[in-house]
């Protein structure tokens, strides 16, 4: 398994592409986590669909993922990806790591 990590966000490359049937919408500077506290933002124009607690993202041109306060930028290359929060153990069940 190969991933990129940005704080508590995992980004999976999707070499096989986003599954057919998932409708993608255009967006600009989309916040993928930490909206109320310290946002992780994919810069520029992309196509996305929110699914299962994360985001399918289609990047047309390499861009950056940045963080408002702590984490340095990473690069999101052209192609399809899925971004989601990492998990931790809650009270007897799994939960998304709260940013």
């Amino acid at each position, binding site marked *: *398994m*190969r*991933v*990129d*990590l*940005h*704080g*508590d966000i*995992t980004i*999976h490359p*999707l070499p*096989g592409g986003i*599954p057919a049937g998932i409708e993608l919408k255009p967006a600009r500077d989309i916040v993928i986590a930490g909206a109320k*506290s*310290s946002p992780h933002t994919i810069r520029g124009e992309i196509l996305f669909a929110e*699914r*299962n607690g*994360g985001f*399918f993202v289609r990047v047309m041109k390499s861009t950056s993922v940045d*963080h408002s*306060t*702590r*984490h*340095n*930028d*990473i*690069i999101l290359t052209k192609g399809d990806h*899925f971004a*989601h929060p*990492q*998990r*931790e*153990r*809650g*009270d007897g069940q*799994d939960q998304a*790591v*709260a*940013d």
Partner: protein
Amino acid sequence: MSNTILTELTQKQEALTDVVVKKYMEIVEKPRGGMELTADDPDIVNVVKLIYRCCDKAAPKDIRIVDSIRAANRLADTLLDPGYTASPNGCLVAEVAWVARYDYYHLIQVLSDSEYADTQTIERALFKVWDCVLLDECAILVRHPTEIHRDEQGRPHRKDGPAIVWKSCCEYKDRPGVVIPGEYVWHGVIVNQQIIEAPETVTPEQYAALNADQKRAFGERFGWANVADMLKAKAVESAVIDGLEYELLAADNGERWLKMQSPILKDGSQPYHVEKTHEDIRTVAGARKWRVAYDPIRDYWWTPEECEEDPSLVVGQHA
């Protein structure tokens, strides 16, 4: 709209940038919470009128000055209809960055007096009002704090008390009788009084309820050895993977925790934090995999057993 386009600054114009920075930095370096402030102060009246005008509303006649954001929320709750709650608008001190920039443009005459007039109304109020809760029939304005403590990077921070102190504070709504003197912040991370002033009283359940940044702050405040003791956990495996330190902690009750070192952050630090992992995880590599092992095509999270059987994980970028 001005048609002036500047391609470079004169020495005098460059020097004015320091003047503007110094002017607005005074807001945090010399908190003005002690100054006298009344609802009929012209700067207060004018900024209220401006903000409501921008929202196509008539400014209310009822303007009240309170000592803290919590007091503003409490007052708003008493004025609102049942079922409604209010929160601060984040106006005024949060506007300082762009106001400072427009102030500078006005100083170097890129903006005329008339173009700067409305911003100047906000500028004047910035030095008197910290935040506001704006209702249809009442404008609640929060005076500045009396103390602001910061770390060497300028972030709110204090290790032995509230980083932001108000002139007076009020009770927590859900904890009657408990008066908190201000806001507790650890290197820019908002935490609660308990974490800063009584970390030894934090329970494992309270620790688990903290978000990632707060867990990090707590560990730095309390010390990670103390966190492990609090969790009644001992290290069962240590490893260095991709240059970062990891430790799997196991508690007598079967709980498992992964202590992780961060990659280098923007401020140059590499803090640790401790997160709870699955109780069936046995190794550092398994715990590291378990955090991220999700198949988005199948919408499937790997089980702890699968993560232990195949703990391989290639991390490309890590920030």
